């Protein structure tokens, strides 16, 4: 299959439904494996920090959830662009299906950040560039959810959501560079794809496992939501009927 053919096939929700069952299982299994290993490692075998003590273990929750929440938003921005340019149905479904996941992960990042801030900074909450821009991310997710509910015509709703998703991506670089632009309590990035980690392997390996695991979980969850979205939108078609009544679902 060439890339061009793949692009055209992605225009067919039916095709996506047929190929995605196996994908969901593989991603789901990987997610369980990675998240269980990373979490047990992070809680039991990773060393406590020489300054923070055991509260550093919150990192294995906080960093992956914050990173995937932003990636999910970028995916929605890309899906929004694809929707506006090519009118691809699947792009609109991605846009709708990512919102609950991204919203819950943003909330988790904020909550675990607060629980980490209390023992390390001495406060649950401190307004600064990083926390403020993450709250903006939370509001963007809420707005995307509300916007779709508020507009009765599906085509209008999806175009409005696409525009908001695209405009909102400006917040992602703000989140990323907020810790460098403004003097703040939040530490700057200690994990990078291009530099050697500043942590010992016993700490960065479980962090990497949980980060990879949360991406697999995002993938599996997104595919599940997309499959359901496809069934709902295509319920009148012959192939859905055959699938539901033929194989006993």
């Amino acid at each position, binding site marked *: 299959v060439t890339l061009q053919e793949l692009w055209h096939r992605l225009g067919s929700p039916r095709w996506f439904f047929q190929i995605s069952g196996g994908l969901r299982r593989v991603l789901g299994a990987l997610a369980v494996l990675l998240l269980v290993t990373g979490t047990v490692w992070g809680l039991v075998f990773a060393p406590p920090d020489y300054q923070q003590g*055991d509260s550093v273990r919150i990192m294995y929750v906080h960093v992956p959830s914050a990173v995937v929440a932003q990636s999910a938003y970028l995916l929605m921005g890309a899906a929004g662009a694809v929707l506006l340019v090519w009118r691809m149905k699947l792009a609109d479904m991605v846009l709708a299906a990512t919102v609950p996941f991204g919203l819950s992960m943003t909330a988790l990042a904020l909550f675990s950040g607060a629980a980490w801030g209390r023992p390390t900074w001495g406060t649950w909450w401190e307004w600064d560039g990083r926390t403020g821009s993450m709250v903006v991310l939370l509001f963007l997710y809420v707005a995307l959810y509300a916007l779709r509910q508020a507009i009765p015509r599906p085509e209008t709703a999806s175009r409005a959501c696409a525009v908001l998703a695209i405009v909102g991506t400006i917040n992602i670089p703000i989140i990323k560079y907020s810790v460098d632009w403004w003097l703040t309590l939040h530490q700057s990035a200690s994990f990078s794809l291009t530099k050697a980690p500043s942590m010992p392997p016993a700490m960065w390996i479980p962090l990497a496992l949980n980060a990879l695991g949360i991406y697999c979980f995002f993938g599996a969850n997104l595919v599940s939501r997309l499959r359901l979205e496809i*069934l709902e939108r295509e319920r009148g078609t012959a192939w859905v009927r055959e699938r539901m009544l033929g194989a006993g679902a």
Partner: protein
Amino acid sequence: VTTVADFFAMGGQGLYVWLSYGAAAAVVAYNVLAVRLRERRWIREYQDRERRVAGARAPAVLGAEP
């Protein structure tokens, strides 16, 4: 020697650590269950509707190929 109690105490920071991991478990469970329950309800409603329609049309061939 680390005891189970030591593990849960997390050096006195157990409250913060377990709050975070508890919230993580809740968020993962929400994302899994939200889809699974909706999926199950959707399939049930679809099949109920199909059965009603089939029953109204031709009760004798329920479940058979049209």
